[in-house]
């Protein structure tokens, strides 16, 4: 019991990062992680059948994300002014002139492409693992990745250094 607790707790930071890439908003991301954890705990007797706990949690988080009710998604878009993240100060005056950074570019992608890119580029999953976490064939994953990455090339100016970190 204690061990399961510890194993799940250890994954929370990664789940938050993945959720942030999916939802674009820190409060909504933590809502999503909370829903995922609650679901995972209810179903924890099942995870051993699915190989790694991490992969199982990523998969569950994506399913919860897809099944979020419209109400919750609407709530996610209505950010309380007090909770809204502070605008991040650009590191240098030139950086402030950039119209787009990688996060803005990511957020413009369809969710399915964002998820594929987040799992492979940020979370470091193999293509097979990422396909399993999204419950799609690996060929589908590759095409989502390809389209998403190509779109990022159009919108993310690689000639400039990254502007900011997501909070």
């Amino acid at each position, binding site marked *: 019991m204690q061990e399961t*607790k510890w194993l799940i*707790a250890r994954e929370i*930071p990664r789940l938050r990062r993945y959720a*942030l890439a999916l939802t674009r908003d820190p409060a909504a991301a933590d809502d999503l992680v909370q829903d995922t954890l609650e679901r995972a705990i209810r179903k924890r007797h099942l995870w051993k059948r699915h190989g790694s706990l991490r992969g199982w949690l990523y998969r569950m988080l994506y399913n919860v994300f897809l099944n979020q009710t419209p109400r919750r998604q609407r709530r996610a878009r209505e950010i309380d002014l007090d909770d809204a993240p502070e605008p991040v100060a650009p590191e240098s005056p030139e950086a402030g002139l950039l119209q787009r950074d*990688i996060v803005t570019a990511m957020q413009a992608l369809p969710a399915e492409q964002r998820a594929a*890119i987040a799992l492979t*580029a940020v979370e470091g999953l193999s293509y097979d693992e990422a396909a399993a976490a999204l419950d799609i064939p690996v060929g589908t994953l590759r095409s989502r990745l390809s389209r998403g990455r190509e779109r990022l*090339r159009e919108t993310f100016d690689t000639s400039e250094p990254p502007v900011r970190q997501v909070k």
Partner: protein
Amino acid sequence: MTDPDTLDDLDLLALADGRLDDDPARKADVEAAVARCPGAAARLADYRAQTAALRAAYAGKLAEPVPERLQAVVRDMDRPRSRPVMRRAAAGIVAVAAGVGGWFLGQEGGDSSRQALLDESYRQFVLRGSDPAASTTGTARQVVAPGLDWGAEDVAIRLSAPDLSSEGFALVEKRALREGDDQIVALDYAAEDGTGFSLFIAPRWENRPGPIVDEERDGVTLAYWHDGPLASSIATRLPQEQARRLAERVRKAMQDETTAPPAAIEPDFRPLDTPPAGVLADTLGDTGARGTAESLGDSGARGAGSMEAAPLPAVAPE
């Protein structure tokens, strides 16, 4: 050899994401193709820059402290539905009754054993001061349990300290007390507002549960009950009504926590003509209540033999 013209995005992506690291031949092949194709090289550079920028942008999230509400989901995961037996079996306390004569002997002992525990609870509570929170500011308060003589007639009952955080109380100290040959475990709980109570637990020998009985002595409320192999009481300066409610919650929490004795020290009751194997403390009550002091003494001696094979830490505040 990969022809630069047929080099597709996926090859480049795989290279940029490090997916070809496990396949050096394929990796060298793609790299050679990229080298011959300036367009591919530019795309590869873009993909690599994307990956680096994404990792940098989201890296801070990993270092952030996890919000309390998320920690709480995992921390409390086993709280709402606790399993009555063997949950957290390894943690906690071992209550030991030494000597058959000193046991709380169920039916016939009824009122007098209750009175004995209540008296002792009151005495201990007043003795050590009624404010457990204040008395534990120094760590030296921890009472060292007297070493137990693992004599011939000990039987241990293992339990975990009941979790009363839902009531706002945290365990601040565990102590082992002795009254005659019996051992009483005392657990001190305190709340943030400075109120607190002490829970006293003694082994007994009857399975029949009894109602919570409370009384007041000089501003101290005492409440007693027994369940399974344990007699319990709480002592507190909280108002009587509150104390009674608290006793109910403690009792409920203990029902969730108490475990059977570890198999290694499970007594052997063969002299009583009961099945010798698979008998746990919770099911022993009927047998024990029927048995006489003499026959129990005999069985206790047999139980001790198996204890030596796997000695437990005598008393286990911690």
